[in-house]
């Protein structure tokens, strides 16, 4: 088996005010192979973000087991989880989460600060080249458009050369053209062999992936292959250039 991610009957229960408990995830069992491009789809409050946080080792399940590359994550310490997030996982968030008053290069270098690498700025520069921002390395987030900011964030997710890219509504704050540009970067990474997991509520975004897993009320309600995934780059050619708003 080539499963990079395997969950066995994962549950996540939040307790609020002591008595009231919320079941965010119930009995989630899924397998994701190395190199897949998976979209996790669901409405807000469906538990898709909770699932992504657990897959990304930011959070632990209340019940069930989670294997990452065959390793049972339940048995690991917080520091081990931090090490996994640093080396195996790259996060992309809806709100970009770039550090203000810090230029693109330094933002991309951030994960490397916590690794043992030494050629930090070279690696960061390379990651920015991959996302097509080689000419913007010394721009501050405030000087970049939303799409460019998200691409900086993707470069930051890539810089440690992780196995898995986890993106939580990465196009949620972008117009359609910038959104497609971001998706095209993910498709490119997928083509290069990375495992990409995209969390979204939008069908038209999800259809760029190979596989869609649907979640509702903390349960998996569907898991299907996409027969003909949309190609973001082709779509971009049909949208006029001016749509991108530069801030």
């Amino acid at each position, binding site marked *: 088996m080539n499963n990079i991610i395997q969950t066995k009957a994962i549950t996540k229960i939040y307790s609020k005010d002591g008595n009231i408990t919320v079941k965010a995830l119930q009995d989630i069992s899924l397998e994701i192979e190395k190199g897949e491009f998976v979209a996790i789809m669901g409405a807000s409050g469906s538990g898709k973000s909770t699932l992504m*946080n657990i897959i*990304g080792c*930011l*959070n632990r399940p209340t019940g069930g087991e989670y294997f990452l590359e065959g390793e049972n994550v339940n048995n690991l310490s*917080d*520091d081990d989880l*931090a*090490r996994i*997030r*640093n*080396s195996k996982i790259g*996060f992309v*968030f809806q*709100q970009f*989460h770039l*550090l203000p*008053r*810090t230029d693109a290069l330094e933002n991309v270098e*951030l*994960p490397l*600060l*916590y*690794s*043992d690498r*030494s050629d*930090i700025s070279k690696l960061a520069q390379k990651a920015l080249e991959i996302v097509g921002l080689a000419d913007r390395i010394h721009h501050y987030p405030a000087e970049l458009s939303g799409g460019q900011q998200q691409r900086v964030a993707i470069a*930051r997710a890539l810089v*440690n050369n992780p196995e898995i890219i986890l993106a939580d509504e990465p196009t949620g704050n972008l117009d359609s053209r910038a959104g497609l540009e971001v998706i095209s970067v993910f498709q490119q990474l997928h083509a290069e062999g990375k495992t990409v997991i995209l969390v979204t509520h939008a069908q038209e975004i999800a259809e760029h992936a190979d596989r869609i897993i649907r979640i509702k009320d903390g349960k998996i309600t569907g898991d299907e292959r996409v027969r003909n995934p949309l190609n973001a780059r082709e779509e971009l050619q049909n949208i006029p250039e001016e749509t991108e708003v530069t801030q």
Partner: protein
Amino acid sequence: MKIFRLTTNAFKGLGKNKMRSFLMMVGIIIGIATLIVILSVTQGANKKIMARINNFGPNAIMVHSGGGKMRGPSSVSEANLTQQDLHDISSIDGVKIVTPFQVKLNMPIKYQSQFTSATVMGVMPDWADAWKRGASKGNFVGTEDVELLKKVCVIGQTVKKELFADINPIGAKLLIGKVKFKVQGILQKRGASPGGSDFDNLIIIPFSTASRRLMNQPKYIAMMRVIVDDPSHLKVISRQIGQVLRHNHHLASQEEDDFRLTSSTQIIKMIKGVSNTLHIFLLLISGLSLIIGGIVIMNIMLISVSERKKEIGLRKAVGARSKEILLQFVLESLVVTLSGGILGFIVGILGVKIMELLTNTPAVVSWEAFVLAFGFSFIVGIVFGVQPARKAARLDPVEALR
């Protein structure tokens, strides 16, 4: 390598919020600056005390006529020490020199049309050994001068300057009171007397001349200076001198001393008593500023942790361990306090220099002061930085990123 990166990061963070960083530093700057001023002034004062003790002589005991509290030298008018006292003290074990001298303060001195006033002392030739101070030019008082009640004098540098300016005074005749004296030497310069007055505004004449011809005190001796063989014997010998004098002066046990004994230990006490209150007050200011500065830093750091929740969450998401977040925030607080400490050190030195110019008090800036400034800044940074840093380190990344 990692810690180096985190440190440079902390410095960069400081630069990104210049106003906030400066406000955080103010308390530390004031605290450290005050500390430096206190230390420098104290050390300057200590140096002065040591100089005075050296002037006084670390192995000397002064015997004054008349009881009561310690003050300046005893004048001939209150003289009550006898030749018998002198003899008995000289036979105490460990006493190397006992030299009697007569003192009269503020005597009018005249040379041609120039007037001044000076302290006049009638001394024996061994006064020079007892004070390690003789004539820098000409001759000191000799045995023959004392035997023959000669009207000769040795003048101090201040007297020379007042009366003679650039003229060579040796051989000149001046009037002390109404008696004419011939200048036969100039005293070595000494600076401050043990009591703090100008020890160069002094005229030395033979003991016998002073007693019989100038001060009209043929029977009693105003003061004696005793030199002991070793400073550690000061206490014991002082006590013995006290016993001898009480016995010779027929004092009953309930009667107070009619003499005073001073040694270097008492001089230290007297000088230190004055400056201590001020130092305690300044130390209090310094300590309070450092504590308040630390609390300000802690407050701003706590606010900063709340403001930067997203940043902390992100750092954790990309792989920062809790202890690395802790380290980052402690380093940020240390960078603030250490920078504040260095600025405070500079401000303190400037303050010391200004004080030196304004008040003419000597101050000594030492490397100990720098180490202390650095140490205190470090301690404040750790003590008040750890709590906010722990708060940051404990943040749950999922919550923080929401």
